[in-house]
């Protein structure tokens, strides 16, 4: 049965094949075993056909029933071996393929975890997702079926051609010419239908995009009674897709009848020429009959062979995309300064200890301990997402331990960028960022990030219960800790009103909660982790001012002793900060506390009195 694929050819077949084979690791001998079993199974099949003649001639015609039964018994054993081999290779192949596929998915996911953020910015989720779905699927399909079918059809084809050559070299020339014509037409047709499939893919993407946008914007559509216009647009795209895919399938569907027709013409020509040969005495009647049987058999394996080659090529190009992703450079992490739990000795010095004391220290590679305080300093930091366009231009700032630092400024001023540099989501291109005097590039990344807690602009929640989502901040948090964190974030009351309280399941990024509720959960998540540095990026933008007031007390409790970075467009959120930095186009244009900045009557004053738009 034809499967339809619109694939692109792999760019570097050899290399991809090598990487793929590498995945088979010690299953490589399994592949060899599978190949052997396919050989046995195919031979049993071919041999069975071949043995018919001697069985008839030697036993049936002379009426040797005893001999016949003995011969059939022998054939039975052979057939049994064949069927057993078929069973064996199918099962082995599926088992091996699934192991390999599992390993590929596992490695791919593990590698994704190591990729740096700029990679995610540069690729759409749909693109990355399709490596896990479409690409892995095509590889899986090919491993499940194509490998064995390829060997099988190759054996069948070469077996048949050998038999033809044995029976008559001259007559076989006709068959070989026809096989070549068939091969050429398969290639030609494949090329053309590939073009059609690409068009179909493009149309499919167009309609998918439309559906996604419209389903997401459903409320607006309803509010504006815009259903009819959208339906029209949908129908237009739907019709385009229908046309494109009808074309694609018509072309690829023509392949089989074409091959069948060619094989019959081949059959007819062979029969006529063979007949003439026989008349001329070059061939006997019995040989002609069995010759023609083989001619008839030859087209099928060729067709299958080319089809499987196509599937394998498609799988290889899928595999290529997978391996490409795995070869992407992971995040650099050369830091060797780590964080240790410490206890204060009576003389004021500190000592490492295994239990949680709430106190931490940097442990340098030479074993010296520096108490973790939370002092962060930027020295002439330069950064751009693309090197030509610097977003931050020689930014210098300092946050003392326990200080609250706020950033304000219009969208695109570089506020979020600054805090994304502290935890090394992005690497700076100039200057230096230090943390308690240590260059952050010398700190091991996981320790650096664990020492910071972030509540970011877009709240993301995971499928799981509310409690599990809060526990994300500290995996070994107790029920008690979770409840306390939720109370601090003022989320406890709404959680308790949900049907299953803390055990309520969240789906699809918490879409069953309001934006504000999701932000409260994100704050609770940060509260449970209790790090020395806290970063709040528009953490309360969807929370009303009164609730914000209620959280404030809790927030103050979390922030106590913490260095805090705050970004907010609501100025009531930032006004009690020790230091406020006003950013514009990647430069700090004003700096100071609320009173100082208001009395300066500069940009901050304009923002604060509503004369200037934030976003």
């Amino acid at each position, binding site marked *: 049965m034809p499967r339809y694929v619109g694939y692109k050819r792999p760019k570097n077949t050899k290399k991809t094949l090598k990487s793929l084979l590498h995945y088979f690791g010690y299953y490589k001998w399994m592949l060899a075993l599978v190949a052997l079993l396919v050989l046995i199974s195919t031979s049993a099949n071919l041999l069975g056909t071949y043995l018919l003649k001697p069985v008839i001639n030697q036993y049936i015609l002379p009426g040797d*029933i005893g001999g016949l039964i003995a011969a059939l018994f022998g054939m039975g054993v052979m057939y049994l071996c064949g069927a057993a081999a078929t069973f064996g290779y199918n099962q082995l192949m599926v088992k091996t393929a699934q192991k390999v596929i599992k390993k590929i998915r596992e490695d791919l996911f593990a590698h994704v975890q190591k990729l740096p953020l700029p990679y995610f910015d540069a690729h759409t989720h749909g693109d990355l997702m399709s490596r896990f779905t479409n690409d892995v699927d095509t590889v899986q399909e090919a491993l499940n079926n194509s490998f064995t079918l390829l060997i099988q059809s190759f054996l069948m084809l070469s077996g048949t051609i050998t038999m033809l050559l044995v029976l008559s070299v001259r007559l076989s020339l006709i068959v070989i010419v026809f096989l070549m014509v068939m091969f050429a037409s398969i290639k030609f047709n494949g090329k053309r239908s590939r073009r059609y499939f690409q068009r179909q893919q493009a149309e499919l993407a167009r309609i998918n995009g439309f559906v996604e946008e419209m389903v997401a914007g459903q409320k*607006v559509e309803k509010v504006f009674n815009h259903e009819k216009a959208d339906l029209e647009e949908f129908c237009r795209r739907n019709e385009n897709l229908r046309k494109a895919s009808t074309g694609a399938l018509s072309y690829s569907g023509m392949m089989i009848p074409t091959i069948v027709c060619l094989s019959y013409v081949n059959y007819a020509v062979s029969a006529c020429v063979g007949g003439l040969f026989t008349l001329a005495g070059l061939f006997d009647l019995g040989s002609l009959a069995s010759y023609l049987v083989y001619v008839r058999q030859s087209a099928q394996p060729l067709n299958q062979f080319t089809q499987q080659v196509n599937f394998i090529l498609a799988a290889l190009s899928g595999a290529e995309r997978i391996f490409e992703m795995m070869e992407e450079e992971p995040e650099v992490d050369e830091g060797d300064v780590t964080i240790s739990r410490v206890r204060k000795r009576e003389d004021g010095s500190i000592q490492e200890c295994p239990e949680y004391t709430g106190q931490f220290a940097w442990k340098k590679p030479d074993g010296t301990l520096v108490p973790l305080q939370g002092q962060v300093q930027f020295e002439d930091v330069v950064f751009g997402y693309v090197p030509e366009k610097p977003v931050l231009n020689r930014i210098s700032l300092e946050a003392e331990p326990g200080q609250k630092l706020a950033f304000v400024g219009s969208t695109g001023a570089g506020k979020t960028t600054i805090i994304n540099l502290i935890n090394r989501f992005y690497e700076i291109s100039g200057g230096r960022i230090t943390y308690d005097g240590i260059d952050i590039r010398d700190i091991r990344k996981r320790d650096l990030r664990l020492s910071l807690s972030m509540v970011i602009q877009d709240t993301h929640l995971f499928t799981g219960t509310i409690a599990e989502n809060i526990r994300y901040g500290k995996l070994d948090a107790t029920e008690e800790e979770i409840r306390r964190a939720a109370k601090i974030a003022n989320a406890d009351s709404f959680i308790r009103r949900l049907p299953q309280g803390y055990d309520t399941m969240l789906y699809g990024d918490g879409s069953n909660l309001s934006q504000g509720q999701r932000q409260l959960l994100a704050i609770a998540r940060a509260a449970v982790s209790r790090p020395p540095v806290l970063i709040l990026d528009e953490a309360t933008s969807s929370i009303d001012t009164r609730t914000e007031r209620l959280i404030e007390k809790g927030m103050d409790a979390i922030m106590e002793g913490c260095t805090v970075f705050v970004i907010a467009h609501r100025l009531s959120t930032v006004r009690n900060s020790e230091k406020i930095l006003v950013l514009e186009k990647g430069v700090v244009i004003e700096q100071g506390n609320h009173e100082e900045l208001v009395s300066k009557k500069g940009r901050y004053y304009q923002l604060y009195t509503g004369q200037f738009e934030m976003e």
Partner: protein
Amino acid sequence: MLKRIFSYFHSYKKYGFLTVFCVVSESVFELIIPLLMADIVDIGVAGGDKAYIFRKGLQMVFCALLALILGIGSARFAAVCGQGLGAELRKAEYEKLQSFSFSNIDHFRVSSLVTRLTSDVTNIQNTVSSGIRPVCRSPVMLLVATGMAFSINKNLALVFFVALPVLGFLLFQIILHVRPLYTKMQVAIDAVNRIVQENLTAVRVVKSYVRGDYEIEKFDKVNADLKNTSERAFRLTAMNMPAMQFVMYGTILSILRFGGNMVHVGTMKVGELTGFLSYVMQILNSLMMMSAVFMMLTRSLASAKRITEVLVEVPEITDADSEEIAVERGEIEFDHVYFKYKKEAPEYVLSDISFHIESGQTIGIVGQTGSAKSTLVQLIPRLYEATEGCIRVDGRPVRQYPVEHLRDAIAMVLQKNTLFSGTLRENLRWGKADATDAELEEACRIACADEFIDRLESGFDTEMGQGGVNVSGGQKQRLCIARALLKNPKVLILDDSTSAVDTATEAKIRSQLAEKLPNMTKIIIAQRISSVRHADQILILEDGRLCGMGTHEELLASNGIYQEIYESQKEGAEL
């Protein structure tokens, strides 16, 4: 279920019949060719008649060409009817989707609706396009070959009575057991995809909490589960081949055994025996083909089920009780309204809400995050249906208005605003399809969007990009207001839709609305007191209950919650 799906063939049905016709006649020609071949050998070659050989050879070529034409025709028609079915299904689903209320959509979830409309339909249409050929062909082959076998030797053909049921039973068992496995596999695939998707969207959270290892552990678990279920499903599917070979080989051996005997006794000729054998192969082959189609069908059954679920879902909000009336004035009344999203939910989201708005009044609504302000206003244009109580517009229950008329009269600017890909003009014309530039400009002037539109490079022809990424948040909000104004509504609802607009501009929008559209009822949900303090009435919501109502001064004097909100914002306002 399949019946339901196939009922969407509509006008493509005739292509279906054409395909069947082509496939069947193609098979007939293919069956004739071996007979012609036999004539060449038995009569032409045996009789030494060259002319006969060529004539038969030409007939064979002719049959082959006819088979080619029919084959191409069948491919074409199969594509037309399969893709046609797909297009009709997508359209039917999309139309159905548009009739859904939000509770219907919540029931399916957005992401799953998209797959149901796309990949599930693709599955079905490909099954039809590629399955129709073997489905029509194998019964013909089966029947003809069985007939031939019987005509050669009835007694020997009795072997089939053992072989066919055995093979049929084996294949049936495989299909029976593999079906639930495919369903399980789909669930496992969904779980894997979900985790990957979540990790892609929440990559910053994962990284900042250093939870990579935790996520990997989570992934490995679902991945192992997927491996196990798909291994089981595929291994069972792979039993097809050996089962088939087992039966086929057994049949061949028995035919040789019994046939041999018959040849020996003289009731059968050798030629007949070999001919018989080739028909055996054909019969079993067509059975095999049928089972492969069944496998494919089994896999697409899951898709068919998911599509049918969408098609049979009953839209919650319909025009069943409506009369041909339209909103005239824009007077709104809530009469002891209760609401919850799901019937089984223990607590109401809105409880016992009653108030009255005169036509042309301006109403402010304030309240905490999650106090159900947005839910409340969404009941007015029937985006959701009140669970208990009654909402009246112009004194008549909203259910009595056709939904289209009701929503035409009520313009709403949502909290989560969406602009669509297309130009600014196209986006604004959502409000009024045939709006002139003068109308567009007027609406933009009221919404204070005119000043930045002039600064845009191509004015109204500026491309918005998906979700309106090409304008800032504050600009987007003002465009959405302009879009709503173009509807020329009786009621305007602004759901926190000026939060990113600076206070000075916001005040300007407010005064222009009051001045230019005095008869329009305006409902404003806001965080900032400054946005609502001039309203005729302010409603205060707390935990889904109405906790106060009155003018700014009245509430400031008597309402504790309002005072608190006011206090929390006072400093900024007084500067």
